[in-house]
């Protein structure tokens, strides 16, 4: 018995220690990466996994670290994961020193008290265009600096428009746009594609039409709002836009446009390079508003943020890094490295236009654009946006009329925001 018992005991201990060995031997690697606490190394998180360690972007961050006298450990997450990670890390008090985060998430993160405001950080934000800075503001304080900005416009296929006899300059209102789509359909092509997916991207793409009707996010069920959703739904119903838009992400719409079958696509500054390389000639015009003129499109792009640290002495260095990333030259460099950012300051925009005069339409569009969390919406925006994209989905798929869908959306949004 005792012999058997010993054998079993040894076996069990063996099994356990194997399990523990798996945890125990990790000490060295763990310390190497957890050097966040150490003096000479600073962490930066960004949402650009496509830019590897050897990319121009990564090198730029390294350079800013060198200028501040520290080394930088950069980690790239996809946007969704980065927001989660920022929250989890903040909860554990182990945030990165600098985070680049998509602008609608900034007020959410700021609201949790996890961010240092720019005044405390000693950063001057006065040069930033107010409409672009708005997404970083909460209760009168500013919690970040845009690394650059982008927005939406209508790209078109020159060959298809020529075949259909459509002059892009004539498109200045919803009526002229719909008429153009009908001529394109008549010439045997597909009119327009956009992203109506049930995520933030769906709201992002719908907003230029929503705002362009004169509607406000505080009243989702206004007549103006219904007319905007009716516009999209009628395009799908009349075959001017494909049914797949209900499930399309922005990337998918762009892939559809690249087939050369579509007249128009709603897409952003970031596709400028890809458009230039497409197998056909392309152009872009601002998205028209209902009655005529340019509709306000939502601003896009990331903000540089400084999360709260236990060791406040780190802020000085982090400030230097953020400054280096957001100087006029820095913003132009970002614009060039990424090809899809317009600098957020007037001097930056002027400098960029000197190098790339062809981006004039985009600079104008960015200056006309509107922050999604602006109009004092702040952290109410994500709640409203969820209802908005749900209404878009319900109307496009034919589950509800635009009016019913938006009415339900407004009720839920009002209940959720308490307004």
């Amino acid at each position, binding site marked *: 018995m005792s012999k*058997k018992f010993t054998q079993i005991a040894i076996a*069990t201990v063996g099994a*356990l220690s194997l399990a523990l060995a798996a945890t125990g031997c990790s000490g060295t690697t763990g310390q190497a990466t957890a050097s966040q606490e150490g003096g000479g190394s600073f962490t930066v998180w960004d949402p650009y996994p496509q830019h590897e360690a050897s990319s121009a972007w990564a090198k730029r961050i390294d350079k800013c670290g060198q200028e501040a006298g520290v080394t930088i450990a950069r980690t790239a997450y996809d946007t969704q994961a980065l927001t989660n990670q920022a929250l989890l890390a903040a909860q554990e008090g182990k945030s990165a020193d600098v985070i680049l985060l998509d602008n609608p998430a900034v007020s959410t993160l700021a609201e949790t008290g996890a961010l240092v405001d720019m005044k405390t950080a000693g950063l001057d934000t006065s040069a930033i265009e107010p409409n672009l800075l708005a997404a970083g503001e909460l209760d009168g304080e500013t919690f970040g600096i845009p690394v650059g900005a982008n927005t939406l416009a209508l790209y078109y296929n020159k060959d298809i428009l020529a075949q259909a006899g459509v002059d892009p300059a004539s498109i200045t209102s919803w009526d002229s746009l719909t008429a153009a789509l009908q001529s394109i359909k008549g010439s045997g092509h597909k009119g327009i594609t956009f992203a109506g997916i049930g995520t933030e991207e769906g709201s992002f793409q719908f907003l230029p039409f929503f705002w362009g009707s004169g509607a406000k996010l505080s009243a989702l069920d206004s007549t103006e709002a219904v007319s905007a959703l009716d516009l999209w739904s009628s395009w799908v119903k009349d075959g001017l836009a494909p049914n*797949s838009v209900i499930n399309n992400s922005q990337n998918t719409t762009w892939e559809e446009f690249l087939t050369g079958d579509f007249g128009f696509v709603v897409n952003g500054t970031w596709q400028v390079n890809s458009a230039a390389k497409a197998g056909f000639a392309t152009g872009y015009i601002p998205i028209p508003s209902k009655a005529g003129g340019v509709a306000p499109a939502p601003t896009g792009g990331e903000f540089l943020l400084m999360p709260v640290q236990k060791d406040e002495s780190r802020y000085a260095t982090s400030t230097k890094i953020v400054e280096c990333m957001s100087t006029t030259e820095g913003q132009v460099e970002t614009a060039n490295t990424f090809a899809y950012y317009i600098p957020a300051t007037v001097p930056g925009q002027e400098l960029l236009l000197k190098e790339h005069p062809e981006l004039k339409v985009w600079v104008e569009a960015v200056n006309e654009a509107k922050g999604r969390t602006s109009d004092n919406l702040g952290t109410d925006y994500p709640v409203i946006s969820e209802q908005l994209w749900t209404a878009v989905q319900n109307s*496009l798929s034919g589950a509800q009329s635009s009016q019913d869908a938006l009415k339900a959306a407004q009720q839920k949004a009002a209940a959720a925001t308490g307004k």
Partner: protein
Amino acid sequence: MMTVTHTAESRPDVGEKADAAVPGNRRQRSLGPRTAAALFAAPLLVYLLVFYAFPLYRNIELSLHDYTLRAFVQGKAEFVGFDNYLAVFSSSTFITAFTNTAVFTAVSLVFQYALGLALAVFFRSSFRLSSVLRGLFLIPWLLPLIVSASAWSWMLNSDNGIVNAALVGLGLEPLNWLTSPGLALTSVIIANIWLGIPFNLVILYSGLQNIPKDYYEAAALDGASSWKQFWSITFPLLRPVTAITLLLGLVYTLKVVDIIWIMTSGGPGDTSTTFATWSYREAFGTGTPDFSPAATVGNLLILIALAFGLLYLRVQKNQEES
């Protein structure tokens, strides 16, 4: 690789039997089996305590507090009792999500199991290439879910999907697989059945291997058809494996998020939203993560699994008693 469960189940445990069989050792052994059993299970117990207790506790704690994001980060959330549960029950999504979860799970399970079993039986008879083909059947499982789910949404795309192209080629009307409220759930179920076949095939095939060949030989001598052999030998003898396969299948199907999320994001509207995708959407699908409602819906799922777990225990007990 011989005899099978249903006869073995009814027998007393080995340890006790061994005690009786070796009279001289009775005193020592009476302590032995239990201690031995506990020692064999010890690593698992430690493991469960270390890795599961905390997440489970956390999920319950989240559901009983109002964790706004600020509270989540700062760690000071208000205790609200069952308010979150009431909110979930009274939400307009609840009925839809409940029905969808039931349909998604039941239909997926039935088809995954039926197809998995049919294939397992088919592959049981060895023929040329059978093991290679069986191995190939598992490939869908090797693919990261984002890849296989994307492939499905690609194939089912209304305008440029191969499935609709085939329908048009056959002179039929194309269907809006992913974008019409009536079809979205069906589409994700089809993809999920496809994903679940390898799992069922592996377990059921493995279970079939444990059925002794001489049973079939005897039945064949008696002149039983293969159909009859299946219902009188295969199916009854496979019952314990069937029970565990279905139970595990249920647990995994209830949890499915990725495939639905990638294909339809639970839409259009709520038409393909299940409890699991609802929980995911609350936590990560919108701009504001709401961990409390997410955990609440997650706990509902755990409760559903508990109910089926109890059912399983009962069935198992009946089997043991019979």
